[in-house]
């Protein structure tokens, strides 16, 4: 027994086993269950074990699926673009323009203040603001910028993406800020000393070095947006659908197998996206 414990292989396995057990119980098994159920059959209020391809056949055979997946990608890409630009700018400002550490921490904490309330409240508070007779429209009218209230402010793709950007930009700021703080300042000085302009320093030094942060932030934002359903439901006034809503509709109607099939397809898609993203940057090497 003593010899067994001394064996490096065995002790290594044992040290890793608690995490492995947790991951198997709470990650691998549930996902395996979802995959299994996705082949089951369903009646109106019950599900029964089977090995059917009906759920997938219906999913891939319906034009709705494609338009909904397209919609989901659209939201993800646009949100990613906005959060990246805003997140990068904020992180850049915090990391390179704010000189004192105290202020950096203070301003960083300021960014997190909205997170003191719940996600849903932050989202719903846009509704009275953007509404036909809301604050935004009445202010614009009183300034004389517009004569008629802007209808597209609320219950539109605009409001959905606005809410996404508002909710998820911080997920971009944090990792980017984190990697920026690790950049050796002497590298930037060296770039200037070698005659690089500000833009050249940004594109040739800072952006390549913050890639891991950008990638982590992108993974956060993309997975959050792809998996969301409640933001889309509230901000589009139930008028648009994404994959998350498709799944939640199925669950509401007790169609668990069909919901599981959609979830499997969504999961594969998201994993594929992440795999592609990781091709660009080896996060483990860069961290």
């Amino acid at each position, binding site marked *: 027994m003593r010899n067994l414990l001394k064996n490096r292989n065995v002790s290594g396995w044992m040290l890793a086993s608690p995490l492995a057990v947790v991951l198997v119980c709470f990650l691998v098994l549930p996902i395996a269950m979802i995959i299994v159920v996705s082949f089951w059959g369903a009646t*109106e*209020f*019950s599900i029964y074990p089977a090995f059917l391809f009906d759920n997938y056949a219906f999913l891939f055979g*319906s034009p*709705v699926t494609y*338009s*909904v997946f397209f*919609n989901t990608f659209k939201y993800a890409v646009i949100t990613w673009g906005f959060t990246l630009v805003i997140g990068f700018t904020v992180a850049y400002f915090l990391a390179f323009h704010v000189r004192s550490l105290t202020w950096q921490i203070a301003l960083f904490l300021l960014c997190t203040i909205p997170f003191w309330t719940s996600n849903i409240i932050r989202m719903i508070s846009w*509704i*009275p603001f953007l*509404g*036909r*007779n*809301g604050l935004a429209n009445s202010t614009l009218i009183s300034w004389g910028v517009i004569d008629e209230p802007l*209808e597209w402010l*609320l*219950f539109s793709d605009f409001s959905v993406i606005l809410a996404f950007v508002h909710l998820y930009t911080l997920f971009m700021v944090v990792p980017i800020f984190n990697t920026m703080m690790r950049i050796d300042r002497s590298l930037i000085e060296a770039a200037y000393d070698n005659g690089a302009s500000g833009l050249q320093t940004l594109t040739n030094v800072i952006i390549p070095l913050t890639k891991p942060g950008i990638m982590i932030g992108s993974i956060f934002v993309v997975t959050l947006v792809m998996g969301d359903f409640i933001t889309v*439901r509230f901000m*589009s*006034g*139930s*008028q*648009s*659908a994404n994959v998350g*809503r*498709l799944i939640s*509709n199925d*669950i*509401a*109607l*007790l169609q668990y197998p069909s919901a599981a099939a959609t979830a499997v397809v969504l999961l594969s898609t998201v994993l594929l996206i992440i795999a592609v993203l990781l091709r660009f940057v080896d996060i483990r090497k860069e961290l």
Partner: protein
Amino acid sequence: MTDFHTPKLSRRSVLKGAAATVTAVGASTLGAPMIWAQNIKDVTLRQFGTGVSNLNEVGKKVKEDLGFNLEMTALDSDAVTQRAATQPDSFDIADIEYWICKKVWPTGNLQAMDVSKIKNYDKIVGIFRDGKLTPESTIAQGTAPHSVGFTTGVDGKEFVAEESGWMTLIPTIYNADTLGIRPDLIGREISTWAELLNPEFAGKASILDISSIGIMDAAMVCEAMGEIAYGDKGNMTKEEIDKTMAIFTEAKKAGQFRAFWKTFDESVNLMASGEVVIQSMWSPAITAVRSQGVPCVYQPLKEGYRSWGGGIGLSKSLSGLELDAAYEYINWYLDGWVGGFLMRQGYYSAVPETSKNFMSEDEWGFWFEGKPAQGDITNPFGKVMEKAGAVRDGGSFQDRMGAVACWNAVMDENQHMVRKWNEFIAA
């Protein structure tokens, strides 16, 4: 005392203690409620249902009048169906709608109720018994409550047409729904369901996103437009469903709808904020909009109403003392206090004549008889709803419930309908 049934050994019954259980079993066999009056204080019944009748005031009053606890959980219609169908142990009393009952009953999660234990059974409105409001009435399309209201016995799985003595749900509240409008923003007469898709209201209309109810409103609209003649709106054919959804999808793409709503609060907010001027709506939502000082009318339309009814059903796992408490609760429910409470919000109670005792003459006249209010009409929470002289939209009980065109329903082609509805939402 040999034939008494042993209460099911659940965590809760064990917790209550052996003494209580023994007394309870004894009492239920003897049929003398007074004996267990002491133990009943420990009983907690868990009720869940849609927000409309799951009010904390009811729970409080139950504690006062009957002594036991009633826990209320409010959910939306889909979640209610889901829970009733899949988690029979998570509730004691299900407050569901009749169309939900049609879906849920075959799962065997509910037990039928013995009408001989229901004191006011004979006074329950005819709609829930033989389907007729008055002997001359014709029965409307859809899942009429009486058609899913009775079964063969306590464990019956089939619905029966006649009053068998075993009720699936004890009717609690019901109402006739129509379109809600903002008269101040529309400024003209609205008299038909077809107005919902009138391009005049482009970007200012809404319909509810609960497929089984939304499809009925959609059918009322398509029929009123003269686009589709339905065999039975409550049980459409695939072609009828496809045609209906095609018309609505086209309207959606043309920007007719501002939003869809799924919960009561959403419908109130859409209307009160002026985002929407015409939409499918529920009666108390109208009241809620008006109580914010915003004019809102529950517009009677010439094609008639889309009606719904709710009732409470008992979980199959209820037995012993808890089952007795549940019957006690049902009898209390029909005894008038709740009826009055709900009627003063614009619903109807299953036994109007008992509710009358809990309403002032003026309130009864306004809400039930459709007479002009003599003084201020307040809601159960004391807020003034209507000033003297106001008349209820749609008039009296007979006028409103007599003009029902269709009941909320589940169709044979339900799955097809749901898919089409999802396509409509995603379009």
